[in-house]
């Protein structure tokens, strides 16, 4: 495959509160690829994902979409870039005063300037895609966590993003609701969406990830396919971390 990468991240650095949080992170993402970020809490996964959407302005480094460097200081190019890069948050961040349909259609109307009828038709299609066709009139407070996360996925998909960033999308969910959200994400991956996702759902990672980036203290310290990093014999830090994670989860009395 000689196709050029859809997203290139070059030497990204970010300090917050005087502390370096990201130190020279570089990697590139091919079209249709699923990249997974793994690593201890505080390792910089959320900060990296937010930098990738310029919700944090990187202190140094470049981000190229389709070979074009993005200049976040130019509002036009920033807003255009953000439309092409969808973001899913751990705590959903649905708009509390809008029902599911309006949550999905708002940006279509206000950013893409679609007429209301078209925007709602598109929003309905996206809600149906995540299995919520019958919930369009419900407000966030009336939805379960899994349903909220699926609405937020529909909201991002409605903008026709080329890349999706997902920050631990199932971490705030009750265990019985994780499956429905992962199913939607799996479908999305199969349909060819490019994704960068922080998650510790190891079953999902093993089966879906094209590449794992193991992050610690603001650096990518290991990088490779699940086969490379999670093989029982490989002795990777990733494997070590995941083993502890599994022990904690099976033995943990939460």
């Amino acid at each position, binding site marked *: 495959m000689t196709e050029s990468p859809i997203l290139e991240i070059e030497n990204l650095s970010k300090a917050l509160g005087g502390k370096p949080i990201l130190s020279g992170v570089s990697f590139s993402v091919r079209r249709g690829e699923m990249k997974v970020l793994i690593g201890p809490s505080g390792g910089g996964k959320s900060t990296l994902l937010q930098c990738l959407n310029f919700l944090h302005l990187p202190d140094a480094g470049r981000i190229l979409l389709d070979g074009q460097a993005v200049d976040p200081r130019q509002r036009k190019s920033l*807003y255009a870039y953000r439309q092409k890069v969808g973001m899913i948050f751990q705590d959903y961040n649905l*708009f509390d005063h809008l029902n599911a349909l309006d949550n999905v259609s708002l940006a279509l109307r206000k950013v893409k300037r679609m007429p209301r009828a078209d925007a709602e038709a598109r929003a309905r299609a996206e809600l149906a895609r995540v299995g919520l066709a019958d919930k369009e009139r419900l407000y*966030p407070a009336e939805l379960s966590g899994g349903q909220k996360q699926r609405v937020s996925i529909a909201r991002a998909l409605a903008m026709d993003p080329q890349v999706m960033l997902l920050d631990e999308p199932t971490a705030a969910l009750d265990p019985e609701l994780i499956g429905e959200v992962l199913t939607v994400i799996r479908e999305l991956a199969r349909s060819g969406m490019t994704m960068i996702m922080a998650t510790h759902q190891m079953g999902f990672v093993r089966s879906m990830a094209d590449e794992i980036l193991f992050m610690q203290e603001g650096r990518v310290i290991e990088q490779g396919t699940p086969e490379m990093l999670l093989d029982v014999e490989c002795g990777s830090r990733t494997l070590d971390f995941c083993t502890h994670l599994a022990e904690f989860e099976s033995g943990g009395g939460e």
Partner: protein
Amino acid sequence: MIQAVEVLIQAIPYLLGGAVLTVAAVAGGMLLGLLIGLPMAVAQVYGPRPLVWLVRTYVWFFRGVPILVLLFLFYFGLFQLFDWNIGALSASTLVLGMTSGAYQSQIFRGAIQSLAKGQFRAASALGLSDAQAVVHIVLPQALRLSLPGWSNEYSILLKDSALAFVLGATEIMARTQFVATRTYQHLALSLAACGIYFILTWVGVRALRLLERRVAVPGFGNQEAR
């Protein structure tokens, strides 16, 4: 006693005429306060330092000076100085509005700051500009949350409006005084004024409560807490 009733019956239409002026001053004041307070709240939360500082100064000034002093300062002082001849009622409305703007800005600011920050980030991530996020996400929620505080502000401003009487605006209090000094029925007329203020408060608060219910969103804000 009978005389008091007679005076009252004759005076009621006149007093109610005053009530119309009071309502005009308070409604105008609330509206002006909204127009001043809302942008100031947005500026205080999202604006650059100098703007935040400017808003803070404004708020401190209007909160720190008694309305009576402000009325004199503007009506006999500044408006005269600049040869701006507006009536006592208009002047009172302006001063009430500027004062209310200071208080309203703090009601709105509190509401904005109580909102979850994540929604703003989600809006940005979808490509909304900061201004669009404020208009479409922050304010619809903040305004809903502000309604109880706004209703409270209305009842306060209504009572403050009685001070317009000292400028010579012929609102409820002024008319009550005119009639009382002519007829010596101070008790009856004061009670009548009490009644009118009470009814105006009740109607306004009730109306805002209805509005609050009308715009309520399931599971959002304080409508289910009562």
